[in-house]
């Protein structure tokens, strides 16, 4: 049983002379929701990409479930699910078919009942299950994205600005689902700009500036207003 599911040690990423991430040292435990705040270009998405194995670190290591991502990204992929700002799926397949497709890619073959169950658990109304994705709103797509993560049974869910553009009701639903996932033992690592939602959903919050993790706070120790103040002072 892993307690620390996500870890970085001196993780650095440079694009030429440009430092995107500088000596990031971080660990996220099982069942935690870690929210990473920061301006555009602060290094949030770079951190996620390094965990996903989409890019190579200049130095240091990204580790998932005690396995270093590079060069073991083939192995670490199975621990990870990913929900981007806009979940892009196949518009001409319906919700169940999309979930079936991406689950099979991950090596899972589920019955229709199971697939429906994942979608329902992710909060997608049953009337939408057999509608084509091209008719879905952004919030509905996010829910299919969560269902894909559930179906993959991934230990870690990496989220990049998942509530950006969602209306308050959809954001509230999304927050509720994230908390349920964490309660089920999933580790959530979320890059976001939404300070108030971060306080609401997260267990810990990190604030990044110019590739460096400047602050880490527990959400139990800080209010939204205090966090906003700290954030504005930091950036």
């Amino acid at each position, binding site marked *: 049983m892993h307690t620390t599911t996500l870890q970085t040690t001196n993780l650095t990423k440079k694009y030429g002379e440009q430092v995107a991430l500088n000596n990031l040292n971080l660990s996220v435990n099982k069942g935690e929701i870690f929210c990473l705040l920061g301006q555009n270009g602060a290094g949030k998405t770079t951190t996620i990409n390094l965990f996903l194995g989409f890019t190579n670190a200049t130095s240091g290591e990204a580790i998932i479930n005690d396995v270093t991502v590079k060069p073991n990204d*083939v192995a670490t*992929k199975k621990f990870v699910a*990913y929900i*981007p700002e806009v979940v*892009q799926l196949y518009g*001409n397949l319906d919700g169940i078919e999309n979930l079936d497709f991406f689950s099979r*890619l991950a090596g899972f073959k589920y019955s229709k009942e199971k697939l429906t169950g994942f979608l329902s658990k992710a909060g997608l109304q049953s009337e939408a299950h057999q509608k084509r994705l091209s008719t879905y709103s952004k919030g509905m797509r996010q829910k299919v994205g969560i269902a894909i993560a559930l179906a993959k049974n991934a230990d870690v869910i990496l989220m990049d600005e998942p509530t950006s553009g969602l209306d308050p009701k959809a954001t509230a639903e999304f927050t509720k689902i994230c908390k349920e996932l964490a309660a089920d033992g999933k580790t959530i690592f979320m890059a976001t700009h939404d300070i108030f939602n971060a306080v609401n959903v997260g267990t810990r919050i990190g604030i990044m500036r110019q590739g460096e993790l400047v602050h880490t706070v527990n959400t139990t120790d800080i209010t939204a207003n205090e966090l906003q103040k700290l954030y504005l002072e930091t950036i």
Partner: protein
Amino acid sequence: MPNRLLIKQFLRSGIAIAGISLFLLTGIISLFIGKSYLVKQREKIETTAAYQQQHIERNVQYGHSEMGLLLYYLRFAYVNSINPLNGLSIGQRDVNLGIQQVTIRNLIEKKYDSDLNNPASLVMGNLDFSFVLIYLFPLLIITFTYNLLSEEKEEGTWRLINIQSNAAKKVLLQKWWIRFAFVTGTLLLLYLLAIPILSIPINASYLAMIAEGVLYILFWFIACAMVVGWQKNSATNAVSLLSIWLLLTIVAPAVINSLITTKYPVPEAMATVVANREGYHDKWDRPKEETMGRFYAHYPQFQQYRLPAEDFNWLWYYAMQQMGDDDAAEHSVAMRNKLLLREKLSNTVGYFIPTLHTQLQYSLLAQSGLKNQVQFLDSTTAFHEKKRLYFYPKIFEKLPVLQEDWRKHYAVEYFKSEPPVNWIKLLLPLLLIIILFTTAILYNLKT
């Protein structure tokens, strides 16, 4: 791998059903254009066969007391057989003469005459099956494959595929395979429909056409996969593939045709006709003995028929006609050889250009190309010679017209050529190009 869902995804994109339906319809139209061509050709042959009997009967019954005079008028039809595969690849058959009406007079001038054609249809070309296969099918393949990968990247699904699976390339391969299966299925359906529509026998030639067609389709799919593998955006892929299509289907054949006609000009075409006409007409003003001397040299077996004393006689007349052919023979042979050299060079260059190779092989298998036309003309010469050698003694001996059993000349004679399929020459060039391109794709995947 989720094949079933990828098939659904492909078929639900509007372009898939529309593209396949359009090409199925175009293919069927091309088959009926081929059928219409075959019907027209068969009607011509039937008319010719019926006419030949009437023509001989009328001339023998009402015409001419002398054998020499009768044979001045009599025409014997020699027909280049219609292969049902012609309906798939009309080639040059609608331009070249398929029915030769030969007399036993000089041949060469007549041999190169052509049928009257509708100039508009010559400009337009034929929308036959080979055109649909060689020119249009690649466009369908390009439409189905140009954004195979770029669409996933541009739509954002590629990232998710890569996170979910360590075998994202297999998804691409499956998408490629599904499109290949549907396009090949459409093509095979057309080949199947061609059997009843064109009354095609299932023989080696037809199987060879099918094999060549499928390989040609595979070549385009591989070429598209190679361009997709360069990982450019959709617009760049589309422009690259359309450029390749333009180069292979229009530019390269036009340039090669121009180079070949420049390398092997045929001034003999004009010289042959002039030599043939002058070779005959000139003899009216030449001493008869000179003409007869050359005639006896050509046919020593007719030396027993000596020149009569009268001013005009048929022995001298046909000897003059013979001189027309003899005088033009050198030019005629040179022209024939040039045409064969053009054919040979086209085939050699075609080994490196799949569009040209497929077109030439289809013409060869359907017997609608230059080689078939040259063989038909050679055979026409032999047919003409056979008629001459049969009738010359009867003319020179002045046999009565009614002594001949003319019924045996009623039937039209046919040229038939069924060259065996050379599978290696047919398939190897395309196979080698496909292997080369596949190797390049695999190398690209590795790096």
